[in-house]
């Protein structure tokens, strides 16, 4: 037996949809059995709230009088990319303030913008016949720009390697502060609640899938950068490290500062916490079965971030969440970097929106690539000019 997304949407519209989060569904299927649970359950919701550096926001400022063809743009002193049409720009989350350095960056601009604050726009131009103006300084906010949408080239990594440090010195990394001599281990996914871990072969999450992003409704726009579906997988098809990724788009004007938060990693730089929730329509028993994946069935590799040692250690998320993992016979404390509390909140909020008919599912227009092709490396080739 199979269900269609349209049938599920009908149940959502009539307020009858049966929805569980990816944590709740585990015991539901355990109690009812797969067949009966499949008959009853329409949607499983997932959630994640972690730092996702590859994020940013497009803005169209509107034209001034006289007009300017902006070719260099700063927002609150943070450079934005302006190599687009006259008054379009893209502010990347990790870009840093010219004055404050990594204490304030693109992520802070985006968070301030979403919170409705005024942002100082400064732009320069060489001046053209049709756009004579050479500079402008003003303020913008979410009520006076034309469009502002986040376009995040890589969100929702399907699993991620846990990190540790074999050296005798503290390391400051995007995986947090790593203490010397295997002093700690950090990890960053929401495990059994994580979107792509619950749909490991991208059977329902595809291009055009509507998602919860930053408190608004957005879409999967494309496969994310570094999408690597050919990663080694376990029998349950869950990859053992970073694999699939998603490029997401969503209206920043409708987002909430609760689910988009700027972050600074000591001596590393700026990043941004992005809250994402993705619904999985339960179209057949296999799709439902895959959403019952448990933390103990999700493994990840442990990587020495100094690159000095090949640890060859795999751990599962039940172990990571227990507070300790073993490295060479020693108990090493673990710490998460993505917020499970907020991931749960997002999965529950998405569940509520579906139950109340505020969130209608979409049919993907195309599936995500799921082949064995691996990532290319950047090689240093001879340059002939």
């Amino acid at each position: 037996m199979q269900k269609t997304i349209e049938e599920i949407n009908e149940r959502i519209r009539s307020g009858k949809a049966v929805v569980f989060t990816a944590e709740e569904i585990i015991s539901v299927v355990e109690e009812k059995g797969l067949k009966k649970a499949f008959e009853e359950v329409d949607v499983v919701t997932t959630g994640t709230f972690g730092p996702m550096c590859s994020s940013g926001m497009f803005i169209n400022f509107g034209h001034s009088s006289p007009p300017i063809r902006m070719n260099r743009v700063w927002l609150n002193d943070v450079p934005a990319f302006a190599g687009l049409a006259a008054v379009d720009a893209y502010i990347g989350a990790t870009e840093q303030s010219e004055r404050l350095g990594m204490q304030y960056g693109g992520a802070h601009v985006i968070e301030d913008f979403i919170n409705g604050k005024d942002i100082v726009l400064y732009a320069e131009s060489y001046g053209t016949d049709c756009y004579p103006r050479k500079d402008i300084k003003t303020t913008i906010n979410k009520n006076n720009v034309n469009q502002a949408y986040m376009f995040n080239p890589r969100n929702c990594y399907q699993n991620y390697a846990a990190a540790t440090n074999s050296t005798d010195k503290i390391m400051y990394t995007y995986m947090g502060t790593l203490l010397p001599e295997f002093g700690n281990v950090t990890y960053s996914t929401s495990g059994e609640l994580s979107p792509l871990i619950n749909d490991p072969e991208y059977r329902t999450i595809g291009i055009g899938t509507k998602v919860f992003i930053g408190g608004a409704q957005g879409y999967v726009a494309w496969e994310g950068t570094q999408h690597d579906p050919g990663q080694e997988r376990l029998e349950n098809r869950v990859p053992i490290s970073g694999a699939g990724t998603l490029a997401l788009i969503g209206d920043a004007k409708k987002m909430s500062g609760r689910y988009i938060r700027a972050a600074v990693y000591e001596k590393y730089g700026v990043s941004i916490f992005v809250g994402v929730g993705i619904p999985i329509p339960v179209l057949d028993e296999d799709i439902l079965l895959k959403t019952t994946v448990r933390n103990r069935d999700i493994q990840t590799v442990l990587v020495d971030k100094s690159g000095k040692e090949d640890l060859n250690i795999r751990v599962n998320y039940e172990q990571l969440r227990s507070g300790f993992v073993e490295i060479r016979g020693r108990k090493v404390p673990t710490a998460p970097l993505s917020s499970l509390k907020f991931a749960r909140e997002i999965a529950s909020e998405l569940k509520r929106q579906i139950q109340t008919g505020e969130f209608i599912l979409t049919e993907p227009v195309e599936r995500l690539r799921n082949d064995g092709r691996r990532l290319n490396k950047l090689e240093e080739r001879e340059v002939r000019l």
Partner: protein
Amino acid sequence: MKTIKVSLKYPLNSITTPLVSTLVKRFNVEVNILHANISLNKIGTLIADITGEEKDIDAALDFIVKQDGIRYKIFSNKLIWQEEDCVHCGACTAVCPSNALTMNRETWCLEFSKEKCLVCGLCTKACPLNVMSLQA
């Protein structure tokens, strides 16, 4: 009764002084060792809470400085956690040496124990949202 948090710095070769037991026996104070790293031929550190009557604590501190080369520093700072801005990611728990910052493994909320805090400030740097700060 009051409690102060002190950091003691031991010079090389001063490990023959039975400091803690002397403080307890002679000055009637309680000493709760929070962190200690003392070994032969190395500069050592000891961080402890000292609890007692004010005059006893003062006398105990006087005694400490009369020991050969041992120096103390009273922690007057305290850690301020802006809980309402915290996203409970857990990054601070990766560096907290005394388990004052821990994740509740049911709710996955951050929990802070003021008593266990060494006021070392490591979490203020590790926190990506800048919600941890030291205050005098």
